[in-house]
């Protein structure tokens, strides 16, 4: 899995490409930890090019969500492929993640929702 980062209006935007599974979960966790260590707590994941996620990847997502909340931050997701969205729905994780149809809509929400 490849992770690319850019920042926009105090939000760290990570684009994930490839598969989020057992082998890649720690890579994502390390990236998030590094962002939080630099006091950036608004993080958006663009999942447009994420082709696969399994339970290990979901576990990593839950882990980073908990870490971000510990830092009183916010995590948003967007652009999920239908198949990936289905995995979130089956596991009911769509109830605990903020999922937006597009990155643009997610970033707009940071302008209207105050940070915790």
């Amino acid at each position, binding site marked *: 899995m490849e992770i690319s980062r850019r920042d926009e209006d105090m939000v760290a935007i990570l684009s994930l490409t490839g598969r989020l599974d057992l082998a890649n979960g720690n890579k994502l966790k390390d990236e998030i930890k590094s962002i939080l260590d630099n006091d950036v707590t608004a993080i958006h994941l663009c999942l447009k090019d994420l082709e696969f996620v399994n339970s290990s990847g979901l576990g990593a997502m839950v882990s980073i969500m908990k870490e971000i909340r510990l830092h009183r931050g916010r995590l948003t997701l967007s652009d999920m492929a239908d198949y990936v969205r289905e995995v979130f729905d089956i*596991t009911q994780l769509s109830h605990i993640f903020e999922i937006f149809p597009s990155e643009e809509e997610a970033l707009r929400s940071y302008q209207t929702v105050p940070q915790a």
Partner: protein
Amino acid sequence: MITTKFRYNSLAESEDTMYRDIKKLLLDNNIHPRLSFHIILALSEAFSNALIHGNKLNPDRAILINMTINNDEITADIIDEGCGDPKRSGDQINCDLWRENGRGLMLMETLSSNITYCRNDSTGGLQVSMRFDKSRYKMEEEKVEK
């Protein structure tokens, strides 16, 4: 009917090889994309369990996958060399959405049409057998064709 057999060493990097092998097999056999995704996901969960819990990442132990594709269904056997309990019937019910693991068996049971666990006579390990009915995806195929 097509039967294909794969063998992997219990190494973390084998997960990637398995993913590519199964994806290619399903693509070569024109399996519906959503069904393919479900099969790969369910196999990925079974493979991770075999790798970590069954074979405990011991590279001397193998994971075998036998796939059979016919007109109506696809079956997959995932066999390890561990001592997992075939009597287990899935994850214990856990309503905590914030848990970081324990979703694999639930996904396997949801995505497959049928799943069974038994002791494999050859390896002595755990065998997970899943069946995926193509009929569940037929209507989607028809919609795409129209």
